[in-house]
Structure formats: structure tokens, C-alpha cells
């Protein structure tokens, strides 16, 4: 039965991917892409990769939809939507060849992977030293911390890149449009009631991450979604990009991670956690990273500053 379910899910995913590509216009493709993200989360769940499923569910449901629909709206407002977006045949042939090459390389990489259980047994044997029940968190912050540190910095660099698109004269301004809502309408009421629940759920996910599926990235995404909702509902404006509090929130995760890494250099190597204190240090990094990821994702969705700040 399990196999039948998996086959049906795969068929559905391929079907949705095809519909997203063949699309009847950009908005239809976009709706299919949102559905695609949802089904991919279910696929990870069925593969028992709950951590990945959580991340995909949060990103797919909470951030991607808002981002893509916002982009569609912006293109539509500028009448920049091509009614018949069929590219020249040469472009299409080259795009097809490129996709084929990447797909082929990926297939080769998978075929070349060694069989067996990979590093699973090594991880399970050694994760006890970190006192973490969740192998994924143990790998991400224990055995592969260097990668995770760089990932958190990449996210920040992406935000810097978005901010570098700020129009002349608007630096220090506020990202995104000012959202207006009827204060006693459905949209505002939804935005008043849901963010506190999102906050509880986000903190729960980072708390759960030490011993069960969850973690900083999943939690950060849920927190970002709660933030984005309050902004969309017109209840809370985005901060100015020069706000010191915002900068602190963006930096605290990667900064703490780097600091711990630098201190570790004195104990036996960059990112070596102090012996006996591995768990509390890792948890502190997780909570700080969740906050930074939340702020970074929320502001990535908002985009570059578009309005002058209130202070000037």
C-alpha cells in the first residue's frame, strides 16, 4: 500500500510539474508551482525526512506563494506581462539542452554515489557526545557546522544584494509598499489573530529541533510568515533598512555562530565546541539563527526600499 501511495504521489508531482511548465498563462503556472511545493513537502514526509518536509512546507506555503504572487502583481501593474510568452525556437532549444545536461549530470552523480547507509552509523554513534536527539541538528550544527555557518551568511548576502537594488535617494527607506486594509475587515482581523499563534509555533519548532524534527530554519520561516502576515494585513509597517534593531536581528545568528567558532579555535580548531558545553552552545546558536533567518526571509520578501523613511 505504501508503494502504491508513493507511486501515486510521484505521478501527481510529475503531472503538476508538467502543468506548471506548459501553463495556461503565468498565473496558472504560479498556482501549479504553489501546489508543487506542497506535494514535494508530502514526498519528503513519505521518505521519512521530516525535517526537510517541515522546511519545504513552511517555505512553500508561507513564503514562496507570497513572493511569486507579489512578483506577478508587480509585472501586471507595469503591463509587463507578455500575453504570449513563447520564446524564439533557438532559445528554447538551448534551454532544453541546458536542462538535459543538468539532469544528466545529476543522474550521474546519483548513480556514482556509494551504496549502503552512507554516514548514518557514524552520525548515530557520535551524536551522543553532543547530547542531541535529532541527528539532523547534530549533523547541521555539530559535524557540518562550517556549511551551516556559510549558509546563514549566504542568506544575509542575498539580502544585501536585494538592498543594493535600492533606487537612488531611497537608502534608509522602508521596503515594500505600505499595505492598507479596512481596520475591522477580514484581512486585518486575520492579521491580528494569527501572528501570535505563528510565534508560538515557531518557537516550538526551534525548541523541538534539538531532539525531534524541527530547527532554526523551519522555525525562522514560520516566524517570517507571521511577520509577513502582520505587514500584509497593514498592521505593522516594515522597519527602515538602517534601523539598528533590525540590523541586530539580522546579524545576531551568524555573529554568534562566528564568535563561537573563533573561540573554538582556541580549544582545538575553528568551530570546535567547548567540551561539556556542546548542547547549550548549540541551542543558543539555534535560537539566535532562528531570529536572524526570520528577519532575513521577511525582508527578502519585502524587497528593496521603495519609500523614504519616517525619520527624515
Amino acid at each position, binding site marked *: *500500500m*505504501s508503494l502504491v*501511495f508513493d507511486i*501515486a504521489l510521484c505521478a*501527481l508531482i510529475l*503531472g*503538476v510539474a508538467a*502543468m506548471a511548465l506548459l501553463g*495556461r498563462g503565468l498565473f*496558472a503556472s504560479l*498556482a*501549479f508551482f*504553489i*501546489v508543487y511545493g*506542497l*506535494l514535494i*513537502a*508530502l514526498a519528503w*514526509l*513519505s521518505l521519512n525526512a*521530516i525535517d526537510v*518536509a*517541515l522546511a519545504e*512546507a*513552511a517555505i512553500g*506555503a*508561507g513564503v514562496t*506563494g*507570497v513572493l511569486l*504572487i507579489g512578483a*506577478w*502583481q*508587480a509585472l*501586471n*501593474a507595469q503591463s509587463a506581462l507578455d500575453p504570449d510568452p513563447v520564446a524564439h525556437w533557438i532559445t528554447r532549444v538551448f534551454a532544453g539542452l541546458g536542462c538535459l545536461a543538468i539532469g544528466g549530470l545529476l543522474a550521474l552523480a546519483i548513480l556514482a554515489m556509494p551504496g549502503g547507509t552512507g554516514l548514518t552509523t557514524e552520525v548515530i554513534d557520535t551524536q551522543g557526545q553532543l547530547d542531541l536527539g535529532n541527528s539532523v541538528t547534530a549533523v547541521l550544527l555539530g559535524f557540518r557546522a562550517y556549511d551551516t555557518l556559510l549558509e546563514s551568511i549566504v542568506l544575509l548576502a542575498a539580502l544585501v544584494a536585494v538592498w543594493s537594488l535600492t533606487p537612488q535617494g531611497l537608502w534608509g527607506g522602508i521596503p515594500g*509598499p*505600505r499595505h*492598507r*486594509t*479596512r*481596520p475591522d*475587515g477580514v*484581512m486585518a482581523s*486575520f492579521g491580528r489573530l494569527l501572528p501570535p*499563534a*505563528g510565534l508560538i*509555533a515557531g518557537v516550538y*519548532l526551534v525548541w*523541538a529541533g534539538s531532539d*525531534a*524534527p*524541527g530547527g532554526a530554519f*523551519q522555525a525562522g520561516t*514560520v516566524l517570517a*510568515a507571521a511577520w*509577513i*502576515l502582520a505587514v*500584509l494585513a*497593514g*498592521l505593522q509597517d516594515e522597519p527602515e533598512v538602517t534601523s539598528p534593531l533590525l540590523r541586530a536581528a539580522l546579524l545576531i545568528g551568524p555573529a554568534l555562530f562566528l564568535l563561537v567558532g573563533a573561540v573554538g579555535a582556541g580549544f582545538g580548531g575553528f568551530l570546535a565546541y567547548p567540551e561539556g558545553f556542546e548542547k547549550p552552545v548549540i541551542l543558543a546558536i539555534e535560537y539566535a539563527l532562528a531570529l536572524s533567518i526570520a528577519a532575513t526571509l521577511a525582508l527578502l520578501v519585502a524587497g528593496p526600499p521603495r519609500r523614504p523613511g519616517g525619520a527624515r
Partner: protein
Amino acid sequence: MDDVFLLAALGILVSIAGALFRAWRGPTRADRMMSAQLIGTGGVGVAILLAAGRDAPAMLDVALVFALLAAFAALAFVKTATPDGAGDPEADDTEAQDREPAP
């Protein structure tokens, strides 16, 4: 017994496939968004059924995240009903609402 849950999950996948037809046909953008919404509710159901069928209560957290964020895409879609994408179709005069909500 576990197979019963997976069979039910399969049943929901079939409903999802049906909803895809509406997303494909439209005709309006609201129809496409509704189909995505229906598939979101179905996703909550499938996640719960997998949690029960595989006896993994931790999978319920995925259902929780789906349910918590289920209305987000719909909310973003509703924003497109106003010309600049920043208003609220329920506001009678969107310009007059351009202020902080009353405390």
C-alpha cells in the same frame, strides 16, 4: 491497519488530482487559487494520515505548519484585486484607509 491510513491518503490524492483539473481550466484566477487552497487542506489530511499510518507523531508538526500557513497564498492573491497590490478589496475607499488602524 496501517494500510487503511495509506489507502485513505491515496483517496485524498485522487481528490487532489481532480482539483488540479479546475486549476488547469480556471477560468478565473480565483478558481486557480481555490484549487491550490483545496490542495492545501488535502495536504494537511495526507500529513495526518502518514503520521498515523507510519506511527510517527512527529509528522503531525508538518500538518501543523500546513494548517497554520494554509491561508497565506490566498491572502497574497486577494491583494492582487487592488491595482497596486497593497490594498484590501473589503475597504470601500482604499485611499481613505491609508492610516494606522485605530487603537
